[in-house]
């Protein structure tokens, strides 16, 4: 029957939160309090809005007060107050916070030793709710009394209490020290026993087993060895359980084992079954469906064989089909994007398939999703897909539709999202067509330059990385625009950044800047040569090979320019006065890093390149520093690349007839080595066969 919206019936008024809270006051009769607790509990179960509204009205401290002051014999009050507290803590962080702030924790713990099973059940359930939240206090497993208490929980006859014990482990076990302590205390054996218990015990046990063995080969080997391998067998068997969540949790346990100790997950049949099972579970509603893509992503991460296997059983098509659905919750969408990202991370065949499924448009649209985690996952997914050089070359990624939302994400926060967007942009701007200006025009360059000045070193690293790739093989007009925006002074600061990774990318950026002829090289000599001087300082003083390699390629590229450019490089790389000081060229030629030797020899090749008027004078100076004889002594360098570059140096400093003879010797030497090796291998095969 319709009623007036302004009028409330007496019953409705009595059930309003403000009204009910007044009944929770301690002076009320026990019966009234009990009825009120029941009413509040019934109203808030599964109703987030109601929970929040009661929390705001201060209901939680009042209920905790009732629990604290209740006598051990007030069974109903104890049960109802504990259950109501648990309900507040269930699934709502604000509820957990209110419960913890009200000091409920010790009172709930007290209930675990009550003589009445119902009271114990209520206390254990509420504590379990609390431990399912990230806000729950961390349990210290290293305290003897805590470990004893935890074992008593796990060994309890009461199902809810054992589940609580498992939940505490799942929530608090993080470090390898904690994993070891739990393993040594015998929890593994007890948790494996619980796998044969009720559904809830099984699931709680699988969850905590995963927490104890995660990334810990020592504990995994103990777990696998338990009861002659029966523990592992039990978990494997649970992959066939009738309950989807149990199947998922068993899979997660096996994934954790396989990732840390792949030897236990070698069976191709089992690996295929795992992938098939996870794909099948994708269709499950609720929590299972939400969590499955994360498990799949974890399984195939960094493992090309498993990615291939997943691709062969159509995992990519199925994941992409989900993206076409209308109502996908943020959590599941995030997982789907991360699983697709893993699938496309290494295999070009997956990227091709992803693009043919028209999924790029869908992923691009999630770059503007409300949830930051989804936006980050979308970036990570696009980062994998944009590793396709074939499509980069075709200019498929550098479009307004893709670049504009990515650039928007650079504004942040959070930093993790900015970093994910930067990594994708780094790939997208490696464009071989003349479209780099699209990125510059939509404001991308400005944002990258801003982020290269960030206080956060990860943001600096990734923005400079993107600038380096943007600079790769771009036309001189774009180089000018980049340098104008970045300025010589910021570039100099980046070359001298406190972080070697940033230095390396900044030098690689300069390397690309000066690749492209005299006009390009001139850019590093502006403003009194601050940039080239910074490169020189870094090459002379850096301790990381990666930094020196990029620095030497900068000088190598500059040395392809005019006489002035070549002389400027000589000035940077040879000591001013001949006071016996070793030149940095000599140091690098004698170092053990193949790539650094190769970069250095290329620099010498270019400094002595025939046809330049000053070449012979430079050869003389390099000879004076012992560099030419060092190069000559390297014709048998163990690195083939270094060896062949030396041919080019010799070509520059000797007559061509002489070089042809050297060249012939080197080729003959290498081919002879190869033949001897082949003969020896064949001899081994024959002797093996004879044996």
């Amino acid at each position: 029957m319709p009623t007036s919206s302004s009028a409330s019936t007496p019953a409705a008024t009595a059930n309003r939160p403000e009204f009910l809270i007044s009944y929770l006051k301690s002076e009320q009769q026990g019966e009234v309090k009990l009825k009120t607790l029941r009413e509040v509990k019934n109203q808030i179960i599964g109703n987030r809005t109601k929970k929040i509204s009661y929390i705001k009205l201060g209901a939680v401290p009042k209920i905790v007060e009732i629990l604290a002051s209740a006598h051990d014999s007030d069974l109903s009050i104890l049960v109802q107050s504990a259950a109501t507290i648990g309900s507040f803590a269930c699934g709502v962080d604000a509820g957990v916070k209110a419960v913890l702030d009200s000091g409920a924790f010790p009172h709930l713990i007290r209930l675990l030793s009550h003589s009445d099973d119902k009271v114990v059940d209520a206390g254990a359930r509420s504590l379990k709710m609390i431990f399912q939240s990230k806000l729950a206090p961390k349990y210290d497993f290293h305290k003897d009394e805590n470990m004893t208490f935890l074992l008593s929980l796990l060994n309890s006859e009461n199902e809810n209490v054992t589940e609580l014990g498992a939940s505490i482990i799942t929530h608090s076990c993080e470090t390898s020290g904690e994993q070891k302590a739990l393993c040594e205390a015998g929890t593994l054996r007890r948790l494996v026993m619980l796998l044969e218990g009720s559904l809830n015990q099984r699931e709680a046990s699988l969850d905590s087993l995963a927490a104890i063995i995660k990334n810990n080969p020592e504990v995994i080997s103990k777990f696998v060895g338990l009861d002659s391998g029966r523990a592992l067998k039990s978990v494997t068997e649970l992959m066939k359980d009738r309950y989807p969540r149990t199947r998922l949790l068993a899979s997660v346990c096996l994934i954790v084992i396989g990732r840390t100790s792949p030897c236990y997950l070698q069976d191709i049949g089992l690996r295929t079954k795992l992938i098939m099972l996870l794909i099948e579970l994708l269709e499950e509603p609720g929590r299972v469906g939400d969590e499955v893509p994360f498990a799949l992503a974890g399984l195939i991460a960094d493992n090309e064989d498993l990615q291939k296997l997943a691709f062969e059983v159509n995992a990519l098509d199925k994941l992409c089909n989900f993206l076409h659905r209308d109502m996908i919750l943020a959590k599941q969408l995030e997982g789907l994007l991360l699983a697709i990202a893993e699938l496309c991370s290494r295999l070009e065949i997956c990227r091709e398939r992803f693009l043919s499924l028209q999924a790029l448009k869908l992923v691009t649209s999630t770059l503007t999703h409300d949830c930051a985690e989804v936006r980050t996952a979308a970036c990570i997914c696009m980062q994998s897909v944009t590793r396709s050089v074939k499509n980069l070359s075709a200019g498929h990624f550098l479009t307004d539709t893709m670049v504009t939302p990515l650039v928007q994400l650079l504004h942040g926060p959070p930093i993790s999202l900015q970093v994910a967007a930067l990594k994708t942009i780094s790939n997208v701007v490696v464009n071989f067509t003349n479209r780099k200006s699209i990125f510059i025009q939509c404001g991308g360059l400005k944002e990258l330059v801003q982020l290269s000045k960030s206080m956060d070193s990860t943001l600096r690293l990734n923005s400079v990385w993107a600038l380096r790739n943007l600079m790769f093989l771009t036309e001189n007009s774009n180089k000018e625009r980049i340098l104008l925006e970045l300025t010589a002074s910021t570039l100099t600061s980046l070359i001298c950044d406190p972080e070697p990774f940033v230095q390396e990318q900044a030098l690689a950026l300069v390397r690309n800047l000066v690749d492209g002829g005299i006009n390009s090289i001139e850019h590093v000599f502006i403003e009194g040569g601050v940039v080239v001087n910074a490169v020189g300082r870094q090459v002379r003083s850096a301790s990381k090979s990666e930094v020196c390699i990029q620095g030497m390629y900068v000088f190598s590229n500059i040395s392809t320019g005019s006489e002035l450019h070549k002389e400027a490089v000589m000035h940077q790389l040879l000591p001013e006065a001949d006071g016996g000081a070793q030149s940095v060229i000599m140091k690098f030629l004698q170092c053990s890093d193949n790539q650094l030797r190769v970069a250095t020899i290329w620099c010498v090749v270019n400094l002595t390149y025939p046809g330049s008027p000053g070449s012979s004078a430079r050869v003389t100076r390099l000879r004076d520093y012992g560099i030419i004889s060092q190069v000559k002594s390297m014709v048998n360098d163990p690195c083939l690349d270094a060896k062949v570059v030396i041919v080019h140096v010799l070509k520059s400093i000797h007559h061509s007839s002489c070089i042809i003879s050297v060249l012939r010797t080197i080729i003959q030497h290498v081919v002879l080595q190869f033949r001897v090796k082949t003969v020896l291998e064949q001899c081994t095969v024959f002797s093996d066969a004879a044996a």
Partner: protein
Amino acid sequence: MPVRVVESSAPSQVSGASTGHALPPACTLLSVGQAFAGTQNVSSVQKDEAWKVNVRIQGCDLDHGYLCGTMEALNVPLADTPVVTFWEGEVVDTKNYTFFTGKWEATPEDDIRHWSKFPSFVPLLSQVEVDGGKSVDLSSYPYIFMRWKEQYFVNVGIDCGLTIAGFYYVCFSCVDGIIHGYYYDPNSSPFQKLELKSSNEGRSGFSFSSYQLQ
């Protein structure tokens, strides 16, 4: 580089992968950004003809035996502008790919016939005849053998009157940066020779740019 259409053919998708040896040597002259210039001989019975060709390496992933880039044919008679194609290369590393093509209408006999055109292949011939070279260790060999297959036209439509149905048997010399290749397409003139030299693009030395995907 595209050639004139005679008859189109669709390549099969058989993989030539096998497990085994260390990868071929990394070579700076064959790294991303590097340019090569030379000619392709497209002579037929009727007339002698050679097209100028420029190549630029755009991607290199030796772990997967993968190389790619563009090929620009400059004086193609039927085209108004230079014709650019994108190609993908299979590096014969005996891990990802062997000397046997196993697709693109190339039989092992076709393979041996083409590879044998390279003098640097001769020392490997006997072993390759046995198993495609699966047991050969090329990690310190100063030549890199590849197959380059053009995938699409970059700047003209597929109706340009040219075909990219065939593929190249390629040999790169690490020592001097010279590339030799032979185009193979059962429907085109046999053994069209590709000759390319590492190009410094008018600079007074060798310049190296680089990018890194994330």
